[in-house]
């Protein structure tokens, strides 16, 4: 029933905007981006059901108002009634909303538990927010790199303005990823909506979320917590690769990114005696 309602709403939105949801925002989009994780699917379904409930309640109130406005206007009903109490009605409009809320709460708590408790983790990645770019670290593979926004004039695909970064975060498809976030200066937030992920990156704190993307492709996200002037210009781009491609990328990345770290370390070691 629950999934059926959600599916019906999704179809209705797709018809209304002539096209199904995509995992990137589209012009004149009405609904959410296409979910590509189980958590995002849960959010998508729950929202669709809530949307139906909201529209029904708002239409009910609007309908009542319109009916009353016509039926009880002064010319149609010159003598007002003196009724000021109706215990039965008052109990009904207290009890029915409580029932509706309980009905909403059941799937909502399920979704919350699904979000909060991660399954067995295959890969851990650390994201650090800086003013104004993201730093990524694969602690188990010893690689780290920064991802800075690509300026509009340097883009090949102009539709990716304010969305693409020079280095993408790369993850394997079909694996449970744990993302831990923190920040170096002010609070940022790592938000990729097709993943159903939106988590603050707070200095001095470590936050953690999990996700598993089965569909390969490139997904985009944003910094979602105001972090100063260039808040709008520190996007997130994530490549989801098949396991084989990921392994190949990892070999490349270990050469490309680990080297930078090494030279940095060597440089620092070289500087140390001089500083003394």
């Amino acid at each position, binding site marked *: 029933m629950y999934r059926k309602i959600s599916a019906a709403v999704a179809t209705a939105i797709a018809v209304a905007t002539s096209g199904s949801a995509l995992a990137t*925002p589209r*012009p*004149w*989009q*009405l*609904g*959410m981006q296409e979910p590509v994780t189980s958590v*995002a699917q849960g*959010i998508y379904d*729950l*929202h669709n059901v*809530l949307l139906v409930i*909201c529209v029904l*309640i708002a239409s009910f*109130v609007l309908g009542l*108002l319109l009916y*009353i*406005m016509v039926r*009880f*206007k*002064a010319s149609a009903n*010159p003598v*007002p*009634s*003196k009724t*000021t*109490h109706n215990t039965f*009605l008052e109990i009904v*409009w*207290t009890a029915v*909303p*409580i029932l509706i*809320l309980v009905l909403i*709460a059941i799937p*909502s*708590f399920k979704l*919350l538990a*699904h*979000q*909060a408790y991660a399954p067995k983790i295959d890969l851990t990645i650390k994201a650090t927010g800086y003013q104004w770019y993201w730093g990524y670290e694969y602690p188990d593979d010893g690689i780290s790199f920064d991802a800075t926004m690509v300026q509009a004039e340097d883009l090949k695909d102009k539709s*990716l*303005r*304010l969305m693409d970064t020079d280095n993408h975060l790369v993850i394997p498809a079909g694996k449970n990823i744990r993302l831990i976030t923190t920040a170096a200066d002010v*609070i940022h*937030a790592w938000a990729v909506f097709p993943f*159903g992920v*939106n988590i*603050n990156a*707070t200095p*001095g*704190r*470590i*936050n*953690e979320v999990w996700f598993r993307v089965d569909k390969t492709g490139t997904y985009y996200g*944003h910094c*979602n917590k*105001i972090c*100063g*002037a260039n808040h*709008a210009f520190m996007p997130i781009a994530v490549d989801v690769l098949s396991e084989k491609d990921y392994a190949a990328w990892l070999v490349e990345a270990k050469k490309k990114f680990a080297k930078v770290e090494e030279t940095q370390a060597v440089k620092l070691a070289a500087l140390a005696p001089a500083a003394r």
Partner: protein
Amino acid sequence: MANNPAHTADHGHDHGHEPYGWRRWAYSTNHKDIGTMYLIFAVVAGLIGFYMSFMMRMELMYPGEQVFKNPHEFNVFVTAHGVIMIFFMVMPALIGGFGNWFVPLMIGAPDMAFPRMNNISFWLLVPAFLLLVGSAFVEGPPGGIGFGGGWTFYPPLSDVIGHPGPAMDMVIFALHLAGASSLLGAVNFITTIFNMRAPGMTMHKMPLFVWSILVTVFLLLLSLPVLAGCITMLLTDRNFGTVFYKVTGGGDPILFQHLFWFFGHPEVYILILPAFGIVSQVVSTFSNKPVFGYLGMAYAMVAIGGVGFVVWAHHMYTIGMNFEGRAYFMAATMVIAVPTGIKIFSWIATMWGGSIQYRVPMLWAIGFIFVFTVGGVTGVVLANVGVNVALHDTYYVVAHFHYTMSLGAVFGMFCGFYYWIGKMSGRPYPEGLAKLHFWLTFFGINLVFFPQHFLGLAGMPRRYQDYPDAFSGWNFVSSLGIIVTAVGVLVFLLILYKIFSSKEQAAVNPWGAGATTLEWTLPSPPNFHSYEQLPRIK
């Protein structure tokens, strides 16, 4: 002291003399004059705040840089718009303005309990506003002016690492003064309502507007000291080396968020409850029927106020809270929908069976009921932690709280304005122009905020000066909406001019038998001393 001749001679000297000229206003201890000053202040601040939102929408009308030379300037406008509209427009208008004017009149009190404190409450607000506006002209972040971290002032962005300049300190002082002003006002209202009701005016006979102000000022009294402490710690972190919110010294930026929202969530009810009160009076008056379920209505407000204190962390679902915390705050938040539903349905039941006149205040009241329902149901959506993660800090949230505030609270304000302007000024408002004002505002402001739901669902974050091109369609529509709304604002200014240049005399009670509260027994405008003899309520 009875044998002091000078004192006896002095006594009685003041009777029959009304202050005039600038002294009447600057030294005012009269609740009606102070209320008028609050309303004028709110109109001025509201115009400035509206100008800021207009510029923001012009910036966002098309992708790319439009109006602001740099993104920080845009952030300063976002921040100042929020602070001005909350602390210097809605609160002064609803509590300081209508509250001061009509609470004493409605309960049959000669004035507020502490008239001189009432004066300082108002006059603290003026330097507060000047400090806030002034902060936009001094250094904030390195190389920029003003504070651009949002009205929530989260450190470390509001700390020296993000904004080392004095702009943030000025904002903190502005809030200290505005907070002191509201606290003194709250004490004044509580004392007045508890002790100065006319004979026979029991608590359960008080008009719902008085109830709404009573609940509001209790929320102010309990929440504002927390804000004061919260921002004072930020001030000492910034200037005196404390580390309350500094991780490097063992502090925690999340502590700020908890303290801020412990104030911040009651604050949003502070903004909306007086509007609930006004709408209750107006719906009853123009339906020509007493309020349906009076006690339920009054105690629903008390319940909203009470529950409002235990839901604050639903603004912080993405801070990395544990499962239990999120589950509790979600459950508590959903509870608020119940008393709010009682209010909506009781207003509808008040209209049911009534004999409804469509005068301008009633249009705003019906508009309020509808837009507040829309803002309410999106609130239920946002209460769900799971879904909230996908909508937190997106335009969906912006749409939600503007439906309750920019449409809700503002509709309540205009509702009160048209309801009482004849009483306050002694001159009726022009009905045709006022209807035009309503329809322009209703259409325009819905056009601004409804499309923002779509932007939020699609994932557009708030407080962005520029956005990916895919979001441009609905942003354009939203910006068209504010142009329509701006025409509405111009019509409102014209209405103000018409009212104050009119020679017509407003009737004692222009609304007929439905208007049963005490202010409609007094002349328009009421005498300088409203009640020569206290009214008796049967």
